[in-house]
């Protein structure tokens, strides 16, 4: 039996191996989505079940859960036939979660002829074919309209790279060099992981390392059980809606019935909407992983280990949009998982208010502006980014202004990089007043981004957004945040807004015209009546809240000086 002190040391060493795999890929990557936004993850996975035993700290949070499904899919397909030196590659989101852009590599790690664990790498490639560059197709109704689907297959066979597989992958990308560079970066990351594991096994022995995997899982499970045991038994219910699927303007319900029973928790999503035609449906693996991300935000001490999920059952029938199979598109998964996470945040208000916060801004609002430089035959340019919003009001304080999504740790490029690389001019890059939900602790503010096109040929506009119809909710009496708003200059020069609220495709604007995106804040925490009057006065003085909204939400009449300062922002 492994002593707990050795285990503590091994835990640190294993985490460092995963961290180093992350760092290796981030440095080598071509895709800015990997290099800058860290949309990737690496870890060590259980040899029989594929469960996550360790994941690197810099990787994308959503992959902690997703990758265990990916490794399990490899185990189920290949069984015991994998050999030392094999590496399996695939992007099938029904098996491995998320969307086709995420390429997964799984490598068995053998020691003395025995399978000790799997090493895994997942990363968001820049382009994997399909009708839309970058694979975000808000009009997709089948997965083949999002990109090429790769089932689990050997990339390396007994240490030999299968060049034909590489050729196939590169031939199906608009950016073959980027695809090749990112692929090799992932292979290098797996190699680094294997070498570091060699050192660790040499030092401690394979049996001790294998024992540590079991012990770490057991401890993660025990940790989660002790946290759940502190929660009162009962069933608690919440629901929210997605705006629509990008095709028909019909709201999509996401419903959660959470049951605490002793040391176990059941998350039942059975009452959620049926599968939709557009790309907002997600696979079971994605939904279950979103639950893990939410729980790790709520109990942030628990490790990145599948043991955390052992006392938790996730119930999602395949009659819902949270457990779709082929050929449903899944490209909009980021929006749907944020709704799941928001629901978990607020359901805790019903039984553990000290652990809950309001909903976050809950929409990636992926905006793409693109066109050609110097006329119709010129080179393509594209500005693509996820945009930020407000963080939730919470027990400690007001929500953070302009934060990133809970499923990601990505930063946004600065204005000066956008302007140096693409023919655009930002007219505004600012906090959005009145966008945070009112409350004892106000929701953080979303942002306003207003962008003018400098290129004589104009630009095509695509938006894959959310939260225009159903803004982020407050909690414990806190108010809702402002919804997403998007506008563009129409042919007559006036502002137009999208019939579907948050989804736009096929719009073209001219040189000198603009688009304007206003993102949601976070929901409020606690009753507005309990907000400190000094905090309300400060909100107005700094222009976070308008005098009108302060009066409406908090019933406060303003000091004259505060009101006059607030006018500055109205320029």
């Amino acid at each position, binding site marked *: 039996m492994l002593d*707990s*002190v050795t285990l*503590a040391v091994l835990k*640190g*060493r294993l985490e*460092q191996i995963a961290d*180093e795999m992350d*760092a290796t890929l981030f*440095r*080598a990557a*071509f895709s*800015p989505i990997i*290099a*800058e936004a860290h949309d990737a993850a690496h870890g060590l996975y259980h040899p029989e079940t594929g469960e996550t035993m360790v994941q690197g700290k810099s990787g994308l*949070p959503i992959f902690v859960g997703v990758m265990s499904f990916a490794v399990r899919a490899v185990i189920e397909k290949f069984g015991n036939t994998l050999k030392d030196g094999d590496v399996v590659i695939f992007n099938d989101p029904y098996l491995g979660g998320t969307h086709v852009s995420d390429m997964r590599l799984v490598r068995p790690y053998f020691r003395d002829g025995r399978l000790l664990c799997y090493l895994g790498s997942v990363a968001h490639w820049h382009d994997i074919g399909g009708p839309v560059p970058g694979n975000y197709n808000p009009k997709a109704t089948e997965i083949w309209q999002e990109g090429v689907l790769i089932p689990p297959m050997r990339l390396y066979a007994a240490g030999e790279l299968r060049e034909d597989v590489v050729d196939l992958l590169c031939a199906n990308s608009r950016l073959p060099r980027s695809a090749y560079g990112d692929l090799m970066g992932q292979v290098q990351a797996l190699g680094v992981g294997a070498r570091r594991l060699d050192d660790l096994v040499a030092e401690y022995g394979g049996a001790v390392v294998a024992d540590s995997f079991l012990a770490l899982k057991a*401890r993660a499970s*025990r*940790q989660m059980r002790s946290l759940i045991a502190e929660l009162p038994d009962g069933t608690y219910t919440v629901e929210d809606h997605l705006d629509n699927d990008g095709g028909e303007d019909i709201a999509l319900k996401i419903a959660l019935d959470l049951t605490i029973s002793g040391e176990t928790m059941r998350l039942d999503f059975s009452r959620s909407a049926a599968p939709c035609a557009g790309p907002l449906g997600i696979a079971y693996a994605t939904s279950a992983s979103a639950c893990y991300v939410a729980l*790790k*935000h*709520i109990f*942030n*001490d628990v490790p990145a280990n599948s043991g955390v999920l052992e006392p938790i059952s996730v119930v999602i029938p395949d009659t819902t949009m949270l457990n779709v199979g082929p050929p449903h598109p899944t490209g909009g998964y980021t929006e749907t998982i944020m709704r799941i996470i928001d629901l978990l945040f607020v359901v805790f208000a019903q039984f553990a208010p000290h652990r809950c*916060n309001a909903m976050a801004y809950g929409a990636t609002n992926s905006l793409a502006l693109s066109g050609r430089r110097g006329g119709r035959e010129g080179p393509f340019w594209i500005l693509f980014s996820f945009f930020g919003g407000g*963080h*939730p009001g*919470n027990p*400690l*304080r*007001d929500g*953070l*202004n*302009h*934060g*990133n999504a809970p499923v990601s*740790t*990505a*930063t*946004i490029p*600065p*204005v*000066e*990089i956008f*302007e*140096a690389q693409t023919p655009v*001019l*930002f007219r*505004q*890059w*600012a*906090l959005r007043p009145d966008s945070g939900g009112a409350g004892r602790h106000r929701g953080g503010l979303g*942002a306003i981004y*207003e962008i003018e096109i400098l290129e004589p040929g104009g630009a095509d506009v695509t938006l894959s957004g959310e939260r225009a119809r159903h803004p982020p909710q407050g909690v414990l009496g806190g108010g809702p945040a402002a919804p997403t708003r998007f506008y563009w200059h129409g042919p007559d020069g006036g502002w137009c807004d999208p019939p579907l609220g948050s989804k736009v495709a096929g719009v073209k604007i001219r040189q000198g015209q603009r688009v304007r995106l206003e993102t949601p804040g*976070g929901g409020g925490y606690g009753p507005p009546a309990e907000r400190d009057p000094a905090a309300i006065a400060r909100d107005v*003085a*700094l*222009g*976070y809240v308008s005098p009108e909204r302060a009066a409406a939400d908090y019933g406060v009449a303003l000091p004259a000086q505060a009101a006059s*300062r607030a006018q500055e922002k109205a*320029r």
Partner: protein
Amino acid sequence: MSGASAKPATQPATQPAAGRAGVIVGVDVGGTYTDVFALDEATGRVRVAKVPTSRPDQSAGLLAGLAAATDGAAEVASLVHGSTVGTNALLERKGARTGVITTQGFRDVLEMRRRDRPQTWGLWGGFEPVAPRDLRLEVAERTLADGTILEPVDLAEVEAAARTLLERGAEACAIVFINAYANPANERAALDVVRRIWPNAYVEISSAVLPEIREFERASTTAINAYLQPVVSRYIATLESGLGAGGFAGELMIVQSNGGVMSAETARLRPVRTALSGPAAGVIAAAHIAVAAGHPNVITGDVGGTSFDVSLIASGRAALSAQTSIGFGMVVRSPMIEITTIGAGGGSIARIDRGGLLQIGPESAGSDPGPACYGGGSPHATVTDANVLLGRINAERPIGGKLARLDRDAAARAIETHVGKPLGLDLLAAAEAMLRVANSNMAGAIRLVSIERGHDPARFALMPFGGGGPLHAGALIRDVGLARALVPRFPGITSALGCTIADMRHDFVQTFNALLDEIALDRVMAESARAHAAGAALIARAGVLMEGIETRIEFDMSYVGQTHTVAVPVPSGTDATPGARLTRALVRDCFEATYRAAYGQLLDRIPVRILNLRTAVIGRRPKFDLSLLAPASGLTLDAARTGSRPVHAEGRWHEAVVYNRLALPAGTAIRGPAVLEQPDATIWIDPDMQASVDRLGNVLIERAQT
């Protein structure tokens, strides 16, 4: 400039007065202690002092330390100061009330950051920018990315904004316009207007502080500089007047985060460059000591109360990083000695998590309430408590001199309660377990800076410093596979010593963002010559004895389409005309060599881009001979022996011989287990290690030959 100056601002650099060859003093002001290292160059006499740091005015402690280590300020020829005044003002948010004037549409850049969050897990973090929103005002103006002025700055609006800021109590002002890195004209015009009405000198433009692309990083650096200017200026004025009252007529210099020093005058203008002043001096000392000792590859490990700071020195040169963040969202972009910090220090607290695993840190007991052994009822079991209980720290003679003795029983009770009982371990096993986990955490940080960056630890020596660093040397040698440890002569005052040997250094950056095949190299050379002249002028104005001036040129480059750049050093021609020999072929060769070393293979047929030009102007200060610190002749091992005491290691007690470290003769060798004591540090030689003393008095720890 405001504030009294004890001397004329300019003196000729070319004629170092003979009288200035006197006492050189290095002062490092830390959180708990102020360390002073004084060297009389004429006699070779070294004196050191460790006095409590005074708060809030650090200069009182500095002057007390100076009095303890010298015969008065009048004999001091130069005083070099590692200061935490700027760092503390940032961490405690006690800088000046700061206003920002910026481009219409962009007042929130400072507050929106790069859309990040303080912690990966949990959305409960917050952020307050150094300039509140009502002190960030917009004016009509716009420059494009290519430097074209789309809209000239509206000077009437600038003046109105400045007056509003003054009405609202702003003391300092940062002017930050979008794309000002590409053309500073609008910023300069605005500066002229603000300077005319601003009542002090604390006004600066972003294109002067950091003419580099990325508006958030530039705005943050410029605003933090403004925020610190009044605080640091006042501190320097107080210090100069205190020194002047003591008859000081020498040069006052301040250590920068880049490991170089600058004049007090420059420090008032660019206090942002002192953000990591203290730790940087320690690394500079380490580099110098390491080279002199013949081990130019070292990894420094500074064990403080709350943290373990690691940095890597390869071939005698410390690695630099381009920016750092002093707390969440407080980005300072300015070259800094690269220091990796983890929460593992003497005060790091042991606890058992819900999964039943022992954790050490990152929470720290700090110095108040401090470790349990400090007495006073502190409940925390810390790394220091484990070291006391196991006999590695002498409870009767704690270093630093603040406490008379340490409470061993209190340490035992805390460890029993927080570690022993929950894990079912006996007391000594629990204390050893704590050290094992703490050492493993420290080893992880060393692996991070070495193995993970492609350096083989077997080629590196560990240089432990800080009072507690040398207690962990043996364990770290074993855990990481380091060649040896090199314990400097005065581990507890390494940073103060480093102050006295740091070179002067001024860094400049300019964004070009152009293809290598298209860039106008004459413009690059002109810019680099301008930077050289500016740096050389600053060095000359400081009036300090120099051995020469060196200019280093580096480009930030990448293949088109890549996000990350690599730092590409290029030969810098002659000192007088740096960059004069630049050719496209030369720059390409340098880029390809750097890229290949970093990534293994080149990407032919993809064009290469130059993002930034970086010019470092370094004034070489004469180094004193470290042999001045060497053990005297005539010492003997026997005479250095002060006794023995039981030390627990590897599950049993050992009777360890105790030596007075400073009385050890050069060339001697000692087999572990042994303890070497000196006023500022304790060195533990594990049973499987051996120590030897080199000719300079450094202690080398290596695996014992069996």
